[in-house]
């Protein structure tokens, strides 16, 4: 075991990467599921070990193939990406554990093991983006995760999923192309692809137009990937028509990894001085975040499909993260990093309840939720707790995120914006209430019987819900890590 601890950064990526082709070879839906669950929990264990190692000893570096950085590909883990690795692998493990029944119900039988293969490849891609310290390697993993997510969405039996997947493919490819153009321009001026190395060389050439163009391309490309308003139009359909467990996986991971990329490129590579003093990025991010929160929440209120409603709410939540980033303060970045974790818990829990509902009812249309509070008491109770967390009621993780965001806003003296954040929560109350009202206060259709979801989906759903409450009550662990991450991004030592 002593031997393997030195290889944790690479094991994080190759475990799902090796399990993925094994799933194809196993040729059994159940076997493939079992193997993917094992691989995913293995990743989670590695992520925990890495985070502990990083918290204790500082950042970890791994030279792929024995080629030293900056020539070879370097995997570099500090508090920020160790935290992201933990989020991604954790969400994937819990959701995957409860995914079997939902996926067998939604996906054609001969394609189920391919779905798990894509899931693992996608996981490997997300983890790879987070773990690598090489900008071109970021692009490679971005494509691995993106191409497998297009397939994951299209694997749902519905025909609309194909169009949703194709639209995502077009937008995702534009985003990835912009990112690779940005990386290319950076390589042109610095002659290196290693993140830390680029970061060290950029200040000398910061005046050039090429660097400004690289910054613009990268910001727009990453903005597309994270569904930053107004580049978000691919997201609602992709989330609505993907198989329900896949949506729960994406909601907690895909956009989070993109937000991490924005943090990494802005703070580690370009540096806060360049991004916010020379280019004044906060005056682009701040209005977009505010507009995104407001308009996406407003659109969410009028949705007729609950999955789509939650998807629009996700776009609004991205706004909160970006709002925290645009404050360029330790508290602001703490709020953003914290919300990465907290929103992953909230949305994965909520989308897991959608998996429960879809499994029993075969639809997530709001009209079909009538009387569901009686028919599926545990599922709807999970939805209510998740919804409260989304709104930001005290004792839930949503509250902790908003608390820190408001603190950060007040620190800058921007109290009108903190009022706006509180008011925007009222919009969340409205869209969550519409579902709750339909489920609990509307009578069910005449011959509806109780039809609680099976325990195999309910247990992981409730695990996520309880995590919402646990980290909402005892936030010292997550806030502590988020704070250290924020300090390391801004280069302030505590």
């Amino acid at each position, binding site marked *: 075991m002593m031997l393997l601890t030195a290889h944790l950064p690479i094991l994080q990526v190759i475990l799902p990467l090796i399990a993925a*082709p094994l799933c194809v070879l196993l040729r059994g839906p159940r076997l493939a599921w079992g193997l993917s669950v094992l691989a995913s929990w293995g990743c989670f264990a590695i992520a925990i070990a890495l985070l502990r190692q990083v918290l204790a000893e500082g950042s970890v570096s791994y030279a792929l193939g024995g080629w030293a950085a900056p020539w070879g590909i370097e995997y570099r883990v500090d508090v920020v990406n160790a935290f992201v690795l933990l989020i991604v692998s954790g969400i994937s493990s819990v959701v995957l554990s409860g995914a079997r029944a939902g996926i067998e119900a939604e996906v054609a039988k001969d394609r189920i093991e391919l779905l798990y293969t894509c899931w693992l490849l996608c996981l490997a891609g997300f983890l790879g983006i987070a773990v690598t310290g090489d900008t071109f390697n970021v692009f490679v993993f971005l494509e691995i995760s993106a191409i497998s997510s297009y397939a994951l969405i299209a694997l749902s039996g519905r025909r609309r999923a194909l169009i949703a997947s194709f639209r995502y493919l077009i937008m995702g490819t534009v985003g990835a192309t912009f990112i690779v153009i940005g990386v290319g321009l950076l390589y042109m001026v610095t002659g290196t692809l290693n993140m830390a190395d680029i970061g060290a060389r950029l200040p000398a050439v910061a005046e050039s137009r090429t660097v400004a163009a690289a910054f613009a391309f990268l910001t727009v490309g990453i903005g597309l990937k994270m569904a930053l308003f107004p580049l978000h139009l691919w997201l609602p359909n992709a989330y609505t028509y993907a198989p329900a467990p896949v949506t729960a996986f994406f909601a907690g991971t895909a956009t989070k990894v993109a937000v991490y990329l924005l943090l990494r490129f802005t703070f580690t590579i370009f540096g806060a001085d360049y991004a916010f003093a020379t280019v004044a990025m906060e005056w682009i991010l701040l209005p977009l975040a505010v507009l995104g929160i407001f308009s996406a929440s407003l659109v969410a209120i009028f949705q007729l499909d609950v999955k789509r409603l939650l998807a629009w709410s996700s776009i609004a939540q991205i706004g909160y993260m970006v709002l925290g980033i645009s404050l360029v303060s330790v508290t602001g970045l703490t709020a953003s990093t914290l919300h990465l974790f907290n929103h992953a818990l909230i949305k994965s829990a909520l989308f897991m309840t959608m998996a429960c509902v879809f499994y029993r009812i075969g639809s997530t249309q709001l009209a079909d939720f009538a009387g569901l509070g009686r028919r599926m008491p545990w599922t709807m109770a999970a939805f209510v707790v998740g919804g409260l967390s989304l709104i930001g009621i005290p004792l839930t993780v949503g509250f902790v995120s908003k608390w820190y965001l408001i603190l950060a806003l007040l620190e800058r003296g921007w109290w009108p914006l903190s009022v706006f954040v509180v008011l925007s929560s009222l919009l969340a109350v409205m869209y969550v209430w519409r579902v709750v009202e339909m489920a609990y206060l509307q009578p069910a259709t005449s011959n509806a019987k109780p039809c609680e979801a099976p325990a195999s989906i309910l247990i992981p759903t409730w695990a996520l819900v309880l995590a919402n409450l646990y980290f909402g009550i005892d936030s010292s662990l997550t806030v502590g890590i988020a704070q250290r991450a924020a300090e390391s991004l801004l280069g302030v030592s505590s």
Partner: protein
Amino acid sequence: MQHHIVLQVVAKVLLPLILLYALYVQFHGDFGPGGGFQAGVLFAVGLILYGLIYGVDTLQRVISPDVLRTLMASGVLLYAGVGVLGIFMGGQYLDYGVLAQDPLQGQHWGIFFVELGVGITVASVMTSLFYAFAG
């Protein structure tokens, strides 16, 4: 199929040459231009040409979609396996230098098997794409 007689004869003559050239590009890739990706594409081109002229069904009797699926996965596993072997031999992931006593020989073996994995996967993916559109 009678009126395709010229095509059929020419294809039969060319096919072994195409496959042989693919293998040359594959196994000579570490000394000259070439490598697994190009070799895989060339090999698949041979198979696809056969499929175009003699029909997809005939090609599927030579190599079935199921076999292709297995090959696709095994190629990736071979690549990743060589990397993991590096870890077990005491180096980093994908460090070929530790695969043999002499680091130079190790690098040689490492890239040989990694490129073989690439070649197998690329050839089978290309042929699968052909099946997906023609089948």
